[in-house]
């Protein structure tokens, strides 16, 4: 757990906080790609410093899945869906920012009370990754367009990945392979569904997919 890593996690948190308040989906995707780049950069430095097969495999998987396949999928999706559109969140931006601040505060306090027996840097890294996860959940909740919901899930996976990678020297590479594969499968299914939603409804407002309720 080094200072560089802590700084990296804080920059990732910065990207997540920026994603919450964006109005254009292109910027959201670019910020997500930036987050993935940071992740890959961290893995690269790790792999170069202490070379081992496991780390290089992990780096390879991350680069391939997160930096090549996922952005390409999201990009194709955006072009296919002609999403030039603005995505307005459900609540207005100052409220969102207050919520982000509260969530970060909550995560920091949670980290402090939980791990008083550990070195300070680990506690800090843990709290920041937790804050990242909470902000990702916020992104899933406050949006109207369906694409941003899946982006929120991807951010959640990023934050958990950095939590594991930083604090516990990563999962065994088999587990990581499984996780990346799952995430990839999830995004592909999601893409398929979005295309079908586009065909059926002609748009992606979430309220179109909220019609199955009981009528009293």
């Amino acid at each position, binding site marked *: 757990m080094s200072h560089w890593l802590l700084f990296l996690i804080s920059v990732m948190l910065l990207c997540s906080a920026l994603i919450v308040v964006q109005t254009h989906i292109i910027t959201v995707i670019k910020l997500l790609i930036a987050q993935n780049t940071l992740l890959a950069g961290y893995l690269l430095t790790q792999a170069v410093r202490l070379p081992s097969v496991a780390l290089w495999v992990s780096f390879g998987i991350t680069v391939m899945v997160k930096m090549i396949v996922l952005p390409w999928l999201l990009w194709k999706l955006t072009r296919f869906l002609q999403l030039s559109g603005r995505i307005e969140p459900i609540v207005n931006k100052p409220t969102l920012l207050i919520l982000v601040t509260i969530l970060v505060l909550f995560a920091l306090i*949670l980290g402090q*009370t*939980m*791990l008083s*027996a*550990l070195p300070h840097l*680990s506690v800090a890294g*843990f709290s920041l990754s*937790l804050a990242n*996860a909470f902000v*990702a*959940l916020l992104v*899933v909740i406050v949006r109207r367009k*369906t694409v941003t*919901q*899946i982006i929120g*899930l991807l951010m*959640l*996976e990023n934050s*958990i990945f950095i*939590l*594991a990678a930083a*604090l*516990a*020297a990563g*999962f*065994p590479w088999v*587990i990581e392979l*499984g*996780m990346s594969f*799952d995430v990839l*499968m*999830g995004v592909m*299914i*999601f893409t398929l*569904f979005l295309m*079908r*939603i586009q065909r*059926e*409804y002609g748009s992606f407002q979430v309220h179109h*997919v*909220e*019609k*199955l309720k*009981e*009528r*009293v």
Partner: protein
Amino acid sequence: MSLIALLFLPGVVSLFLLPCIANRTWASILSATACTFSFIVAVVLAMHVYRQQAPVFFFHQWFICDKFGSFFVLINSLIGMTTSFYAISYLINEDNQHLHPLVYRFYHTGYQLFLLGMLLVLLSNNIGMMWIAIECATIASVALVGLYHTKAALEAAWKYLILCGVGIGLALLGTVILYFGAYTQGLGEHGLLWTQLVANAADLPPRLLAISFVFLFVGYGTKAGFVPLHNWLPDAHAEGPAPMSALLSGLLLNVALFAILRFKWMLSGTSLHSLPAYLLLIFGFIGLLFSALSLFRQRQLKRLFAYSSIEHMSLVSIAFGLGTPLALFVALLHMAMHSLSKTAVFFSCGNIMQQSGTQTLSKLKGLLGKMPASATLLLISTFIILGLPPSGLFISELLLILATLNAHILLAIPLLIGLGLAFLAILLKIQPLFWSQSDNNTVMPLKNKIFSYWPTLLHLIIVIISGLAVPIWLLNPVVHAIVGGLS
């Protein structure tokens, strides 16, 4: 060769073969054969594990089969087998309506992947792999729920994907926090192994355990249908094809609860042993009352039974929350009985929907006259699921009331209210189906009926026999293993 590896073999082999088989009949038969083979191996494995004290391990202790797990493996493989036979008939009767021919390969591959994922969860000792397997099963089932090209199916699959995606993400967060705690305590990479966690749980900081358990509970609880995170459940169970509804209700909810219970077991030796119990009790009662009241508002057949699944799962979580040996016995019995009878219910619902073409309760009338065989099966299954004697559910609900009275008398009041309301609601909704007059007389005939009838009958017979002669020999070893692990 290890029995566990043999258990996975048919699933993995069929997963590779099924995408290549174009002939529909051969694909169904291969799927059914693979499931039968799995079932036979599962029975052998269960007998093996029951006879010896120690659990069976495999592959660097990444897989474990103890008595708790083998019980569920048995249920899973039995129901998987019967559902695959049911699907032979169901799919043949569907092709004139909603399904494109290419979809059959997809269905069978997804089905085997789903079963394999659930089996992996039940047998995994590595909490990371448990997560991967649950996610895999979720994704496979999402794809299958959205199989039909209707707007409702699409919406159901979408809600399922997003809500369960969030839930699974939270569960991953809990897993990582737990791993991180175990890793820094000196367990290293073995911090992922459940057996190591159980042995060392008392050394981990209690706040960390509490927070990770809460995340895991919320995450896996979304998949188990705890209110208020249950929004995806009625839609997903109602809009998928009937075999998928059966598996989701009967098996996936069990597996999600199983994951929560593994972690509850882990916390049982620490100072936090009452936290899981409280959480399970609270969410159990909320779920029971909410679903009992919601049952009154249902207008569609499969949605009604989906809410009934939530209700039964709440009963099971109340039982696990109580924690006494009797309550544990009841919980296990109830899970087994519920799986068998709910799948039977969904099989018969599927038959009826295919024959009459609609799900809406107000349009289904006079079924006993129009389609006597399917309607009789639905009638018997409904009585079984309502908990009328001699069904096994009657025994388990009775014993649950007794266990609650033994533990805390006051808790029995909401329990009785919930049970009564649910009974009333389902009976009120189902009764008009069978005996009223109806003007609409179009009935589509079923092909290959025998395959849709014998799985249902088998399940009903097993439940009735268990109601008459409770299989104590099957459940007691599991209860002793759990209680013995606690002390």
